[in-house]
């Protein structure tokens, strides 16, 4: 491995786009960071990051997302003496953060929207009280800290950064192999990542029942939207956990969020902090989401969805997920 500079902050993303997006969390007082793109090669890194970075590593390997302990061993070498490690919030990042927190005795903070350096030390912000308050934490004066950042639509304006040389690293085989992993059911062809989607269409219990889920999946396909859900819908088994938005699910930052039959429980609203425009379709004008929304359509969610599907016209039907059983 090439000898590298010791940045105070290292940003680690699963894929270069996530790593690049996480740079937007870095605020005042933070110098050039080390950027680590997991599951990427130098050929994947063609666009310069939006912020000047000290160095870029591209890490390839078969067990990046399944063996966090082995990955943490390599990351420890790459981060060197960095004080702050910034990761995303997807499962693989949380697994890696858990392993690093133990191995490096690093203090974790999650749901972070900004980290900066002041005369007091490193501070970071995160939403509290369901998004009604902003909490500021100060990181321990010594030792390492791990920040789990929320996705952001924030765009940085920088002074024409250039792309530094990308150093490629390969994850060595673990002494104790982690779980094997295989894709056993192809999801809908148009299935989109919630955290990266420009439009998110979320459904709540107000859509009436699981028999209406295909309608909203169809509408999401036609809109080019990622399909999200409230915890109540997931707990009821109408959609899988991968669709859950909120405190205990995905944190989204779309240009537009459409909530159909979503009342807006605090648990769910906590995941919407990054949405630029919120639209609520609900028959109850007093629902918390309606009070937060830019646009409220006071109507039955299913009726509105049917009208929209009708108006948007036909699209090629997409294959549906097969329900795998053990």
């Amino acid at each position, binding site marked *: 491995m090439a000898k590298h500079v010791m940045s105070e902050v290292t940003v680690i993303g699963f894929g270069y786009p996530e790593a690049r997006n996480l740079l937007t969390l870095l605020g005042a007082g933070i110098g050039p960071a080390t950027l680590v793109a997991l599951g990427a090669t130098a050929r994947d890194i063609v666009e310069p990051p939006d912020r000047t970075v000290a160095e870029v590593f591209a890490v390839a390997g078969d067990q990046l997302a399944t*063996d*966090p*302990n082995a990955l943490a061993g390599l990351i420890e070498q790459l981060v060197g003496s960095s004080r702050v490690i910034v990761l995303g919030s997807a*499962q693989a990042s949380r*697994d890696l*953060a*858990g392993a690093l*927190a*133990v191995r490096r*005795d690093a*203090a*974790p903070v999650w749901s972070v929207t900004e980290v900066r350096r002041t005369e007091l030390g490193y501070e*970071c912000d995160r939403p*509290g009280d369901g998004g*009604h*308050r*902003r*909490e*500021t*934490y100060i990181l*321990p004066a*010594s*030792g390492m800290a791990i920040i789990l950042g929320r996705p952001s*639509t924030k765009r940085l304006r920088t002074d024409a950064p250039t792309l530094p040389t990308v150093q490629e690293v390969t994850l060595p085989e673990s002494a*104790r192999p*982690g779980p*094997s*992993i*295989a*894709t*056993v059911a192809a*999801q809908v062809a148009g*299935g989109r*990542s*919630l955290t990266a989607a*420009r439009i998110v269409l979320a459904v709540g219990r107000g859509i009436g029942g699981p028999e209406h889920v295909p309608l909203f999946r169809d509408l999401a396909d036609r809109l*080019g939207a990622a399909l999200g859900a409230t915890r109540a819908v*997931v*707990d009821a*088994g109408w959609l*899988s*956990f*991968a669709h859950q938005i909120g405190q*205990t699910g995905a944190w989204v930052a779309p240009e*537009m969020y459409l909530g159909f039959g979503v009342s807006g429980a605090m648990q769910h609203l906590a995941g919407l902090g990054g949405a630029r*425009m919120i639209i609520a*379709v609900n028959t109850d004008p007093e629902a918390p989401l309606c*009070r937060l*929304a*830019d*646009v409220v*359509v006071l*109507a039955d969610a299913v009726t*509105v969805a049917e*009208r*929209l599907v009708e*108006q*948007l016209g036909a699209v090629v039907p997409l294959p549906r997920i097969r329900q*795998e059983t*053990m």
Partner: protein
Amino acid sequence: MSHRPRNPLTLLSVSTILVAVKPIRADHGAAWFLDDAAGVALEWAVRQRETARAARVVAVAAAPGSCAPSLRQALAVGADEAFVIRRPSDGDVRLTSRLLAAAAQHLGASLVACGYESMDRASGLAPAAIAAHLGWSIMARLREAELRDTRIVGLRDVGVATQQLSAVLPAVLSFTGGWIVPRFPKMGDLLRNRNRKVTEWRPDMIGASDACPPAARLIRTLPVPTRRSTTRVLGLEDGVDALLALVGNTGTADG
């Protein structure tokens, strides 16, 4: 005191956060109760014992106070034994995971099942941190799992696909909701367990330190200004037209 299982499966159902933050539920008359996420893991483990894939299920909580009622609820649902590790009220996921990993070793467990979040204030790091302490495999956010001899096989939804994971035991698992539905304890089981002893451990009794490494400290909390000053309220017809116009102005390419 050593607790050796008759079978290599032991469940560690930990609900520190739930125990610490859930209010008294007057309608149940209980000051503490299990959180939903831990309930899914407990249900899965009990099913393994009921189908003879496991011999013993043990519920363990690392909590700053006595939370025996919630552990008795776990016993009523089907756990064979329950323990509380008394931990300091400060400290973060590093302390929680250290104590639970020590308990797993003390009990001779070869499988730890967790809720996917909650036990450590929703960071979602605890399962991986426990696995790191133990040097075990981690299979996180499973919707279901099956023991096959010396392996554990699980399914996980990742939004764009369903993944099958397979690992050799020992391992740490975490479960999401929606697929495995926790059972309600029967009244008879609640009554039978209402005075059952829940053993409390000090960390040193299971070979663990209760030292709390420095954690991030809250220094300020400020109200966030109201997000919206005006809201357009529309009916069905106008609403559909407005949505079509708004969607048409929003690019759909994923960022």
